[in-house]
């Protein structure tokens, strides 16, 4: 007689935390994010220490372009908002709308990644500023590259979830998965806020 909780029609209010598995994943993931914070802090610290160690290569002011970084920031911020829209629809149990907004998030994320790849290629080709050019170069590419790798991983995560669960609809099994992926996406936006402030803005001030 009990309504089948696994079927979409009878989902509880916070489907992502309604099961024990869901709430364990939720706690575990926030723990993981605490650790990732320290990871990025060590990369930031290294960058701050080495930001002026230019060897014979270019310095920050020579290379950075604020226009591109501004566009990338707006794109990533907007993608964070669209992932919140997706979670909003998930909370309201509309699977198709959630998929739609996740799709928009992925599209924006791909645009961001495209711009970042263009930026790196541009630096290497036009300024001869590479990973091995100087300590600043190594620190820069490690920090921003790690962030870009996180973006790429987040995109793969979303895409895999969307394809895998497309025929299943929303249920208590995949709701936590979508929620965790979206937390990851917000976290990389958090890291980007610090990257554009510390690396680019402080470099051009």
């Amino acid at each position: 007689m009990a309504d089948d909780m696994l079927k979409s029609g009878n989902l509880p209010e916070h489907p992502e935390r309604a099961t024990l598995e869901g709430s364990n994943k939720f706690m575990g993931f926030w723990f993981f994010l605490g650790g990732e914070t320290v990871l990025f802090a060590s990369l930031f610290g290294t960058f701050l220490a080495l930001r002026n160690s230019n060897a014979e290569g270019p310095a920050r002011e020579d290379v950075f372009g604020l226009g591109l970084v501004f566009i990338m920031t707006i794109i990533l911020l907007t993608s964070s908002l669209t992932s919140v829209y997706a979670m909003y629809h998930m909370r309201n149990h509309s699977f198709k709308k959630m998929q739609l907004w996740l799709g928009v998030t992925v599209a924006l994320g791909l645009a961001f990644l495209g711009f970042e790849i263009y930026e790196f290629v541009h630096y290497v080709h036009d300024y001869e500023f590479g990973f091995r050019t100087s300590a600043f170069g190594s620190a820069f590419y490690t920090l921003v590259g790690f962030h870009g790798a996180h973006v790429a991983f987040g995109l793969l995560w979303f895409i895999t979830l969307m394809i895998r669960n497309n025929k299943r609809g929303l249920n208590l099994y995949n709701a936590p998965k979508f929620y965790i992926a979206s937390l990851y996406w917000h976290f990389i936006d958090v890291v980007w806020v610090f990257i554009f402030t510390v690396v680019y803005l402080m470099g051009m001030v």
Partner: protein
Amino acid sequence: MANHSNINDEKREFYKSRNKQEMKMQVYTFVMMIAFTLVAFGLVLAEVDAMFTIPIILVLAGVQVLFQLYYFMHMNTAGHEWPAAMIYSGIFAAALTVLALATIVWW
């Protein structure tokens, strides 16, 4: 039987409207974040003195991060005590790391 589904409908209506409220707050937060970003970029493009801009953009970044955490990542809703503890411990360790690296390395 009818009462049971009436109660469910009411609950659904309540949760829907509460989610809508939350969503509105999140859109406001987004607009604030864009505004902060614009201010930060504006300060640097206007070539305001470094001694002034650097602390301000760092504070703006910090506030933006708090917005993300509390509104986008739902840290302002119930049941987030442990996540908050974990993230703040992470931030504490992170601050120590950045301070240590930034002061120890000088070449």
